[in-house]
């Protein structure tokens, strides 16, 4: 168990390009932190610097207060799960998991090693595969062996490098909850790299969003979603991604391509003397007026939209509305799209409507949104003008509290399970004996 502190960490490669640029991040003891960003944002490099597989060009990485910049990976006592698992093909599953224990010469007897490996195997439901070779396992089983190798010893922290990206969608969901459960129970500090924002949002206590090696925002998933600091974070978090529309300020009205929105005095003030802003609206904040109950909604903005394409997904219905963007922001938005690994295709508004919506391809739909939900960004700097620091801090605090409670619950449950297991301990060891005999 350990706290990891990154301060002003820089990684420059031979050509002088900073893959990681001045990243500072405090990871508390027991915290589950996600590093997320589009490909090439330096998240894996950062992780490999923490574990010691990449040199640190500048800055400091400390584990529990000790600066580890110059320490070899083995001296950092961290456990890592690689993207391609990196199992040792010539060793059985048992030996793969036992590998880190065997390297600590003399610390563990054969008996202890067997006990620990079997405990880890039981946690990950690998007991019946211990004698097999990695080549004969399925992708999910290999993934679990790689996790077994990480949890078998008392590592100070777990590091995951896109551990689920090689699994198919269904298995990915299962393993995701498995990792979450395991981390809560063990309470081990975890640093997890992914490009998948679903993983980032569901697993992390805190999510650090990186763009081209620069840390954009590190906050709880809720804070990231509700209070992104800039255009990039806003566009990265959320699925389908946030809609960005050009907004022309005209007195107390904000003119969007599809609707006019009255400006509140507070928003008016935040916009200042900007004549043109970028307006962000989440697809899930748009609603189909036809699905409202009698009487409709109070306030809000209603507008008519020509729906081009409709995607029905069972629980949701995505309606796509093309619109003409403003020349002056077109370039900013195109650049943003490229940063987010997009293709810079047509400009369209996505509305995530309820499945009960009757909107179909080619319909003219009446859509509604609450202007309080709008985010307004500076078109040049991308800064979020509607950012509410107080709300972000509250969301973070709630998340810390939730984590504390979840960890406690998981550990109590684990302790109970262990007590139960101790009651039937004879039986378990007999099972172990059978296993080795076989």
């Amino acid at each position, binding site marked *: 168990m350990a706290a990891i502190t990154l301060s002003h960490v820089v990684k420059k490669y031979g050509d002088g390009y900073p893959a990681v640029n001045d990243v500072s991040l405090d990871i508390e003891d027991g915290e589950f932190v996600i590093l997320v960003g589009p490909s090439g944002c330096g998240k894996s490099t950062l992780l490999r610097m923490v574990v010691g597989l990449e040199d640190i060009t500048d800055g400091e990485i400390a584990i529990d207060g000790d600066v580890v910049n110059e320490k070899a990976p083995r001296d950092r*006592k961290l456990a890592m799960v*690689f993207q*391609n*698992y*990196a199992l040792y093909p*010539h060793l059985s599953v048992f030996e793969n998991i036992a590998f880190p224990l065997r*390297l600590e010469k003399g610390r563990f007897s054969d008996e202890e090693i067997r006990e620990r490996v079997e405990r880890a195997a039981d946690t990950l439901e690998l007991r019946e595969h211990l004698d097999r*070779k990695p080549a004969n396992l399925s992708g999910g089983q*290999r993934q679990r062996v790689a996790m077994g190798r990480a949890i078998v010893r008392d590592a100070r922290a777990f590091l995951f490098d896109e551990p689920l990206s*090689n699994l198919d969608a269904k298995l990915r969901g299962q393993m995701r909850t498995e990792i979450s459960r395991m981390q809560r129970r063990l309470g081990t500090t975890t640093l997890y790299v992914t490009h998948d924002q679903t993983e980032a949002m569901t697993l992390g206590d805190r999510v650090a969003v990186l763009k081209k090696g620069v840390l954009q925002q590190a906050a709880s998933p809720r804070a990231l979603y509700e209070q992104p600091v800039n255009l990039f974070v806003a566009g990265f978090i959320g699925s389908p991604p946030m809609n960005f529309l050009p907004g022309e300020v005209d007195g107390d009205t904000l003119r969007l391509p599809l609707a006019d929105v009255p400006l509140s005095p507070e928003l008016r003030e935040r916009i200042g003397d900007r004549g043109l802003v970028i307006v962000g609206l989440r697809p899930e904040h748009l609603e189909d007026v036809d699905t409202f109950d009698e009487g409709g909604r109070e306030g809000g903005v209603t507008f008519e939209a020509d729906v081009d394409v409709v995607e029905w997904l069972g629980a949701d219905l995505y309606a796509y509305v093309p619109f003409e963007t403003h020349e002056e922001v077109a370039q900013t938005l195109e650049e943003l799209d490229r940063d987010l690994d997009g293709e810079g295709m047509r400009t369209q508004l996505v509305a995530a409507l309820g499945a009960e919506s009757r909107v179909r391809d080619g319909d003219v739909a009446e859509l509604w949104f609450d202007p309080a939900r709008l985010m307004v960004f500076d078109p040049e700097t991308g800064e979020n003008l509607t950012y509410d620091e107080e709300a972000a801090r509250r969301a973070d605090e709630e998340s810390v509290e939730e984590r504390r409670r979840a960890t406690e619950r998981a550990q109590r449950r684990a302790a109970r399970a262990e007590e139960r297991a101790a009651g039937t301990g004879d039986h378990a060891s007999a099972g172990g004996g059978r296993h080795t005999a076989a």
Partner: protein
Amino acid sequence: MSARGKLWWWLGGLAIVLYCLFPVAWIVSLSLKAPSDLDNGSFLPSAVTWQNYQLILTGSASELFLPALRNSVGICLIATAIAVVLASLCAYAVARLDFPGKAFVLGLSLAVSMFPVISIVTPLFNIWRSIGLYDTWAGLVIPYLSITLPLSIWTLTAFFREIPWEMEQAAQVDGATTAQAFRKVIVPLAGPGVATTAIIAFFLAWNDFVYGISLTSTEAARPVPAALAFFTGASQFEEPTGAISAAAVIVTIPVVILVLLFQRQIVAGLTQGAVKG
């Protein structure tokens, strides 16, 4: 596959096997013929005789053959061992590290292996004589290295590249020193590759004739392929064909045994399943 397609595969396979094994069978058959029986006009000997084998192993030709066999085995093993050790170091560096001149090293070793042996032999002969390497084991080991090293470097580089870098990194994170990671992870994974390379290098050295006949003069260092050329019949009217065939069969045996022993390793893709897929 249709029954008809299968039939064609079988026929094709059979044709290839016959084509490859026919010369071997012929040599074996010749080695079992008595000198008077050589021109009997049939493939098989009229009467199977072991006298050729007796001749080269215990008879008059044994003075020529047995030292040559010892030389061949010794020289080829030494050349192979040195080549594999040096090539492992070189190939590991080429496969793992990024340094200027990497392509140059590979290109140079390829160029060396392309160089026609016959054009080097005459200068070597003169140099070896003047520095006292002529007709010694070292005098053959060194030129053999020039054949075996480039090939070993190329094959081992390919093998090492196949071993995922992550294996070693994973071992280091798991608490291994660089030496431990190399010994416990890289060596077992590279084993089959090294074995395969060693066998190929050994064959190359084993089959050499030009260096063997040019750089030796006595049984002090003369290898088997060269020694075969010095076989004579029991009298000048007798062809040494039978004895040569018997010797050829004997020198083929270690090759066959080696391949049979290591074919599993040669074929087995041990790294399979190490990473995804």
